[in-house]
């Protein structure tokens, strides 16, 4: 599909949303693939509605996300009046835009048309005397229904936008009691809306049409994690990493590569895998030894700050940092949970099933792998023990979820398997040869 056609789809969606709410629409849920410009879309739609006289509350999930939204609003739509509503005791950062009003008291909330940005936590404990015309929720899949309920006082109309493929919020308590509730308090708010047949008539449903972050050739690898289709915005062949090593051939085509290490007969290390950490260190060294980053017409050598590293276990991340040595100061190493919302030109990820020979439902949850596979703008290198394919093929998923709930284990297993098979089909499964001897 041409860029013009994709741009047209974006525009159609934005126009549709504006018309929906301008005409009194009550509810909209928008799914966004990774790096699809959802905050940009949100700002464009809400700016138009605010310009039309609406008074809009925006809920972000963290203070830094709320600040970031304010920054972006000022730079893209300085004509819109934006207010940042924050807890008392929280001061604006030194670089916080002066154009945005900073208020802490409910009585100071603006009464005229415009945008007021706060965190979900802040909105959920605020009593407004004059409800907003619309509550727009960014990163909505990170918000549980119980959190949304608190916001029933904020507005009667809701716009939810977010990436459903990311890691769901942690639920620590026994929730069996509420699994079959029509308003299950622990579930992501958009999922409750989308599962409720009676809301179908009032809810505007849509999805952003394209992933703008990943290389064109990487997009098919993340599609199995989503239940809607989307395009690649980056043209074919535009992004790649070129390096001398034979294992890196797929990267030169924008395709992810998975480097496999043999699985010991007695089983692989479960949490801290020093061989994998050493391999990651070697990969970084090779990247920094003249690898070329191609981003459209721009070409340059890979720098440490271009590289991100991720694994599921904090203790493995510590081992990865230790293996990287001094370069670890410039290469961010973190869990996928902490990588959400971030990106790097080159990502190195330890496959979440590496070392896991008998996966649990937790292991098969796709959010971690989806986040790992969707942070790069040029190249993705996975590191893993070579049992993963056989582990997935041997696994027989069991659907013991509560009545009416989605088959998360079956879906996770299927998505993992399709991801792995796609790597195999692309010739991207490469045995890692220890170049250090």
């Amino acid at each position, binding site marked *: 599909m041409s860029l013009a056609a994709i741009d047209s789809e974006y525009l159609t969606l934005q126009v549709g949303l504006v018309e929906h709410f301008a005409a009194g629409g*009550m*509810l909209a849920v928008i799914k966004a693939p990774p790096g699809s410009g959802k905050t940009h879309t949100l700002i464009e739609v809400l700016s138009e509605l605010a310009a039309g006289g609406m008074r809009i509350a925006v809920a972000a999930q963290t203070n830094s996300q709320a600040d970031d939204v304010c920054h972006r609003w000022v730079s893209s739509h300085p004509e819109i009046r934006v207010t940042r509503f924050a807890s008392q005791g929280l001061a604006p950062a030194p670089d916080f835009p002066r154009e945005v009003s900073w208020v802490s008291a409910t009585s100071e909330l603006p009464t005229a048309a415009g945008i007021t940005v706060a965190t979900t936590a802040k909105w*959920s*404990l605020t*009593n407004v005397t004059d*409800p907003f015309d619309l*509550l727009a929720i960014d990163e909505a899949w990170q918000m549980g*229904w*119980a959190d*949304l*309920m*608190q*916001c*029933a*006082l*904020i*507005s*009667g*109309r*809701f716009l939810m936008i977010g990436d459903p493929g990311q890691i769901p919020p942690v639920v*620590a*308590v*026994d*929730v*069996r*009691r*509420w*699994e*079959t*509730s*029509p*308003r*299950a*308090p*622990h579930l992501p708010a958009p999922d409750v*809306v989308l599962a*409720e047949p*009676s*809301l179908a008539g009032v809810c505007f449903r849509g999805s952003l049409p394209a992933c703008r972050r990943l290389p064109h050739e990487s997009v098919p690898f993340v599609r199995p994690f989503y239940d809607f289709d989307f395009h690649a915005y980056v043209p074919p062949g535009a992004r790649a990493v070129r390096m001398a090593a034979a294992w890196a051939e797929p990267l030169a085509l924008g395709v992810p590569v998975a480097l496999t290490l043999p699985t010991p007969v007695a089983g692989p290390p479960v949490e801290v895998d020093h061989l994998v950490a050493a391999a990651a260190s070697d990969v970084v060294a090779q990247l920094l030894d003249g690898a070329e980053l191609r981003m459209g017409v721009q070409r340059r050598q890979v720098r440490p700050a271009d590289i991100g590293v991720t694994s599921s276990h*904090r*203790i493995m991340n*510590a081992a990865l940092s230790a293996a990287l040595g001094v370069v670890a100061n410039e290469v961010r190493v973190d869990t996928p949970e902490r990588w959400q919302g971030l990106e790097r030109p080159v990502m190195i990820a330890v496959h979440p099933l590496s070392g896991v020979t008998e996966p649990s439902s937790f292991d098969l949850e796709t959010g971690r792998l989806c986040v790992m596979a969707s942070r790069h703008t040029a190249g993705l290198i996975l590191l893993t023990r070579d049992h993963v394919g056989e582990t997935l093929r041997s696994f027989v998923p069991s659907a013991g979820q509560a009545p009416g709930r989605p088959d998360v284990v079956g879906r996770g297993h299927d998505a993992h398997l399709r991801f792995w098979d796609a790597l195999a089909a692309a010739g991207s499964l490469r045995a890692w040869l220890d170049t250090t001897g």
Partner: protein
Amino acid sequence: MAGTLEAWRMGRPLPRYDTLHHAIAPADQVLIVAFVRMAGESRPWAIAWGAPGAAPSIASVPDGRVRDDVAGLCAAFAGDLIAHLSAGGPHLDPATTAPDPMALHQVWLPNGQHIAMLHQVGYTYSQTRFGGANRDLLRAFGRIAGWMFRDTSRVGNQHIVDASALLTASYVVPAQRVRTAHLGYVLGWLTTDGDREARLAAAMAAERLTVSPTMDPATEREPLAGLVDRWNDARRADGNPAAAAAQIATVLDGEVRRRWRLAEQAYLVLTADDRPVNEGVTALVTESQREFWYQYLRIEQRHADPDQGPAFIAHPETDFHGSSAASRYLIHEAADEGYIGHLIHHDHALFQEALDDGRAFQAQVLGVDDAGTGRSTAPRWVLRLDPTLPHRLRETTRVAPLGSRGHEAIVLVLNASADDLLVTIEWTARKTKPLLGPLQALPMDHMWLGMTVRFVLADAAALTLRRSRRVWSAAAGPGAWLTHGAPTAPIEITGDDDRVDLVLDDIVQIADGVEV
């Protein structure tokens, strides 16, 4: 895992943690209950109940499928159960009068499958139209059983004890997890003298006898199936079913008594344990007593509460109304968040576990400063941590000093280098009160310099509780059309005799004012 291996090496179960994490009420405040049911049925066939150290009351019916007979059996037990639990509850609103933790009355059951029977009882009786003269008592039985079942999923609950779960929470048994769900198996390990082989043999022998309310199919095939047929034949033929009934009662008596005795044995093992009950359990009991009031006694008395919602009979399956679902969920979440915080200050092994997991840390105080302006005080400390140890600190993480629950600080800055991790914290709660512990000094006292202080991550239970209350007021907001539920219809249950029972959900009670 290390504990399991160590217990295997030692050849016996080992204590888990330094303290017991659950209240153990005195024997006269404990009712032990065990059920037996016919396979495929949801209702009891026999019930045993009584205090530890005394002979239990045992009642059964000849055929667990005969609804009226089973209702009579349940009615015989229901009065004692309700009287027992209610006697230990707070009799006034705990918002005005603090509940007495010492008054706690507990019900002990052998395992989770017996607790699931409470759920089935809730389904069967909480809104029943049947039962004749016993109908109100059966409904009350259904309501209290429903509350008992729901409260068992609240972390830190103290009224209803799953004996098997409490034993495995209190001891590390070197066995497969599936096996440790069998109370007899766990008791075999715990109460047998001798080495690993002797204990394991005793456990495996005990495992051959079922603990679940459902009996061994072999026992149902022989002798029960024939006896039940004889009883039914005699009844239909206007004969004398008494002989068969007596024989059935004898079999069921043995079965239910054995289950009851196992739960009693679990109680005795725990009362004989020389570890103290964790001091933090007192707070858990107080919380449980409040829950007992708000979720059971208050509703029995039909008092509405602005923070806890109107008095409605909970649907056995779920909370359909948005407010009731979110309120209960958030209260359970607050209980979970606060649980470790109550216990960790009084249990070194629990602290050590948190330390290994990065949920606690110890640090040397490098700096003490006051960042307050004017008359306000803002004590700040600079701490040095060992950077090689795991931690979960981020900017804005809230921490509490070990042993001084209530004091709280927030992480302002983290500075990491290869050799050092420097963390600046600012005290935010009880900052003008001396910290408990050896120094008994205020946070801003420079005597802290050079000291090593242990911290745990603070919980957000108080905030979550606030949110649980707000979901009721949010039902009046303009967004409630979406957030607070959908219209529902009563569930009709048609019995074998074509008579229809109804179950009304919480929405019709809360939104439409329908009384159950």
